[in-house]
């Protein structure tokens, strides 16, 4: 379902995608990257991207808080999925199941159809990279470059390949000039971009971003958007938690709305943000993007992005010979 059609290059078998059995090969290569060490051109990477499936996943925190109730979501390789919902609706809890930080109290999490229950967290780390909401939970090195090198080094990357990864990741978030800086001399927004770079350097086939745009100014948001677009071009799966509905509508092909630990809506932005879904959105304490509201007022159908609104306006004006004031 929801296959974006954007050719995720997923022809190789699932054997290397973090399978629990073949622990003998854990030496020098990231478990799910075929070409990660073969050359310096990141655009040529061809990650083997596993599908993700949450199968009736429930999770209760030790204090009894039921954070997830039978969540079932299947994400095809290369999909771009935004997860939206109120604070406390279970978004972060859900994605933390993907890299093994949390294990479901009921249900299963599957990568390429395999239950990850017995997969070691260290192997999952090479498959699903998670950038935390709060960078200070993630950063610990005294130098920006060391921070970014930590992940790939633990995947067995060394030497020039490691340096190249660090440089590419820092360039991708606009911190290329800060390699020697102490992370705590960076402002919050740049520490957050640094945390993102440290995950990018892992070149994981699945990229998980927890509120990547909060605390960023317009330039930082543009950086994050570029990172998502590039990961999409490379065929990676990107899953982002966000409160920014414009970001969700413009950069993702699928939006999952969570409400009180359950999936309330799941579909492309045109469906999830369509007027018919607004009551459900509002019940989840969300508002549709401004472009959706304007499109609905003008009777243009579902236009969740500025681009789709403009396109619908142009089409309506062309179709209407009776004056441009009243499209349709």
């Amino acid at each position: 379902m929801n296959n974006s059609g954007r050719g995720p290059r997923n022809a190789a078998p699932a054997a290397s995608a973090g399978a629990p059995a073949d622990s003998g090969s854990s030496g020098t290569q990231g478990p799910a990257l075929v070409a990660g060490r073969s050359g310096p051109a990141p655009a040529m990477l061809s990650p083997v991207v596993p599908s993700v499936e949450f199968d009736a996943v429930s999770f209760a925190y030790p204090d009894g808080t039921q954070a997830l109730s039978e969540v079932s979501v299947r994400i095809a390789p290369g999909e771009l999925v935004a997860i939206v919902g109120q604070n406390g609706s279970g978004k972060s809890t859900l994605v933390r199941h993907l890299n093994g930080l949390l294990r479901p109290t009921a249900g299963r999490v599957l990568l390429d159809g395999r239950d990850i229950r017995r997969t070691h967290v260290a192997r999952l780390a090479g498959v699903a990279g998670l950038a935390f909401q709060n960078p200070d939970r993630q950063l610990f090195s005294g130098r920006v470059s060391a921070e970014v090198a930590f992940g790939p080094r633990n995947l067995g990357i060394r030497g020039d390949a490691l340096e190249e990864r660090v440089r590419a990741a820092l360039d991708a978030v606009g911190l290329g000039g800060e390699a020697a800086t102490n992370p705590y001399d960076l402002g919050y927004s740049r520490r957050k971009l640094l945390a993102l770079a440290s995950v990018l350097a892992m070149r994981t086939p699945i990229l998980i971003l927890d509120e990547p745009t909060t605390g960023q100014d317009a330039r930082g948001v543009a950086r994050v958007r570029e990172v998502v677009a590039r990961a999409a071009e490379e065929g990676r799966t990107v899953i982002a938690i966000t409160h920014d509905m414009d970001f969700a509508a413009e950069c993702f092909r699928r939006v999952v709305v969570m409400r009180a630990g359950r999936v309330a809506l799941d579909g492309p932005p045109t469906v999830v943000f369509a007027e018919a879904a607004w009551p459900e959105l509002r019940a989840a304490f969300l508002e549709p993007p401004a472009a959706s509201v304007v499109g609905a007022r003008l009777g243009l159908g579902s236009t969740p992005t500025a681009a789709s609104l403009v396109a619908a306006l142009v089409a309506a004006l062309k179709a209407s010979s009776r004056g441009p004031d009243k499209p349709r």
Partner: protein
Amino acid sequence: MAIELDSVRYRYAGSASAALGPIELRLEPGRVVGVAGANESGKTTLCLVTAGLAPAVIGGKLDGSVRIDGVDAATLRPHELAQGCGLLFQHASTQLSHTTATVFEEVAFGPCNLGLAVSEVVERVWWALGAVGVEELAPRDPGRLSGGQAQLVALASVLALRPKYLILDEPTSELDPAGTGLVADALAKVAAETGAGILLVEHKTAVLARIAQEVIVLERGAAALAGPAATVLADPRLTQLGVEPPAAVRLEREVRSSGIEWTAALAEAMG
């Protein structure tokens, strides 16, 4: 009656260059002045200077004058500054005292230190928790709140001081859209009902459009734009200053730049 910054420049201790200035600012009771700008453009520094904490508490060098209700801030003592100005830090974890067992006690911490009667403290705590819609968190452990909840509790703990001036550094950064709307409404209400003057640093320009009367956009420590909120937020230079314009402004720009004639019907739909 106002906080007035006159030709202010400020540099941090140990830094060779000024982080802020030259800048003018006038924050009057009952008014909301919004501050936007790219990351590291001086917004947080402006908060610290306006609250009188820089240089009084953290050192550094200030040129020009900061006057709080006509009194030079440099002559005020920390407890006097604290009573006049409530400052909400950007991150709730820096704000919370980490000394209290419940959210109720956390919010009561400030008013207790003002030496108020217990009944007055209790009344203020419930009022402040109610203002940001988190009364149900009162018995919870402040160390076990979500990011958004902690931010609301931190804001309530500042509101409970009922300061004459409120200086808020990105109070909605961790909040979902509903929480952001709640805080925006609460601040507008606090300004109108208690007459507090509010300096509000905010990336979400929709919030500024909703409740600020004036907006300042900082660039490298100085005011690149300043004036009535509606004028500043519609300024075409906003994006290049690293500030995302409100959605309505952005959509209007997209429509116009695509060559579609801008009509009254469109303007109405955007509103």
